[in-house]
């Protein structure tokens, strides 16, 4: 390379090359998916993740107290069977293995309810903090899937009759607010499913049965 012109050309190309390499590496490394979100989406995200983090902090505090209680009982030479039983009851209710009772919502679907409408409703109830849900008297657990044609929707091989009743235990006010807000799930489903009727009624005392499924894995092994 002899001439100054060629040296300048090569320098410019090298400069561009370096700039593009850095830009490309940064765009690949920064793959959080946040860069292309609008301010409105980001605000919604901050609100949601913040709320969930508060719940996680509550869980950390609860677990910390639980551990302290067990350790203190052991230090005194006491039995911590009471703590074990309380833990067992809580986990079994939470997972669906045991029945539950409490305040919540009764949602009645009348008319051409589809499996999709039901699946969306269950998803929204969980998002609103439902602690236990039953559809047509069947406890909803992770593997409970709504299927079938409109008017012949079933869960866990149980055909659901019209009107279809969903019962959810949780904070009744929060769940009602989430479902019935303007532009919320109820408004969306009513707008897109002509002939469908949805009634949402808070209740002080509801009963959700235990699942009939065996939730224990048969093939997969625990990794402790």
């Amino acid at each position, binding site marked *: 390379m002899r001439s100054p012109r060629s040296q300048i050309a090569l320098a410019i190309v090298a400069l561009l090359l370096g700039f593009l390499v850095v830009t490309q590496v940064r765009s690949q490394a920064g793959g959080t998916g946040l860069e292309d979100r609008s301010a409105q*989406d980001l605000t919604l995200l901050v609100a949601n993740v913040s709320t969930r983090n508060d719940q996680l902090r509550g869980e950390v505090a609860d677990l910390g107290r639980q551990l302290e209680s067990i350790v203190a009982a052991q230090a005194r030479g006491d039995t911590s069977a009471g703590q074990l039983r309380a833990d067992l009851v809580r986990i079994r209710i939470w997972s669906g293995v045991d029945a539950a009772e409490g305040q919540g919502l009764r949602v009645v679907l009348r008319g051409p309810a589809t499996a999709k409408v039901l699946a969306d409703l269950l998803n*929204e109830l969980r998002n609103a903090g439902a602690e236990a849900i039953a559809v047509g008297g069947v406890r909803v657990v992770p593997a409970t899937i709504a299927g079938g044609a409109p008017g012949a929707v079933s869960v866990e091989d149980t055909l659901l009759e019209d009107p279809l009743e969903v019962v959810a235990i949780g904070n009744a006010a929060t769940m009602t607010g989430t479902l019935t807000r303007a532009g919320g799930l109820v408004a969306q489903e009513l707008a897109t499913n002509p002939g469908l009727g949805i009634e949402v009624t808070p209740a002080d005392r509801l009963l959700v049965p235990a699942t009939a499924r065996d939730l224990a894995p048969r*093939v997969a092994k625990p990794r402790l």
Partner: protein
Amino acid sequence: MNGVGARMRSIPTWEITLFVALVALGFLIAAQVRSEMPRVQYTSQERAPLIQTVTDLQAQQKALKAQILDLRSRITKAETGTQGSDAIARQLNNALFQARLSAGLTALQGSGLVVQLEDALQVSQSAGGADLLVTGRDVRTVVEELWLAGAEAVAVNDERVVSTTSIIDIGGSLLVNSAYLAPPYQVKAVGPANLYAQLAASASWVDFVASRAGKNGIRLAIAEPADLVVPAYAGSVTIRYAQPPASPAPSANP
């Protein structure tokens, strides 16, 4: 051949260097343009602090989840070493182990499937562009199909699907359990050896693939690893409203 060799030797070294650099330049420009294309760049000034806040919240969440898993592990160890009547303690500890296993509070390992979903390559903000993005409904469909195929545990980007899991859309991303997830979404499932065969035989799965991958161009890939780990749920198991029924109700499992 000698002619060509002689001609190659006559090309100055700097020209070859420039040629290689130009080829690399062209490649990088094409890659950069392509990576910018699917996304809309927002320029409002409030976005930078919001992005930083979300990033900070995600980091806090990661630490909180690690704390939860650590505390659960320590509680399990403490409970296992509990004093009192040996028979009662043993019975309660066994029951707790089973309850945690059934609830998704224990990681599970075995053969399984990984289904990966990514936005279509030609994503744009033009009319109809939403069909080219992976939505919460798509991920829920994959999760449901895996359960129907016989999965024993499912996770989305390592967020275990449990009794309280919701999968909701937030502006082109997903909120699963407590976590904000961005594509690509990997749905992991452990289950019986015939999990894939069961999935592939499902008419609703075939319809989903034909519609979303075939018609809309969503990128869908499936891997069948011999050994897979679905992590434990690292969220809240606190119940505030659900209590044991006042009158005893039948339980399915002992």
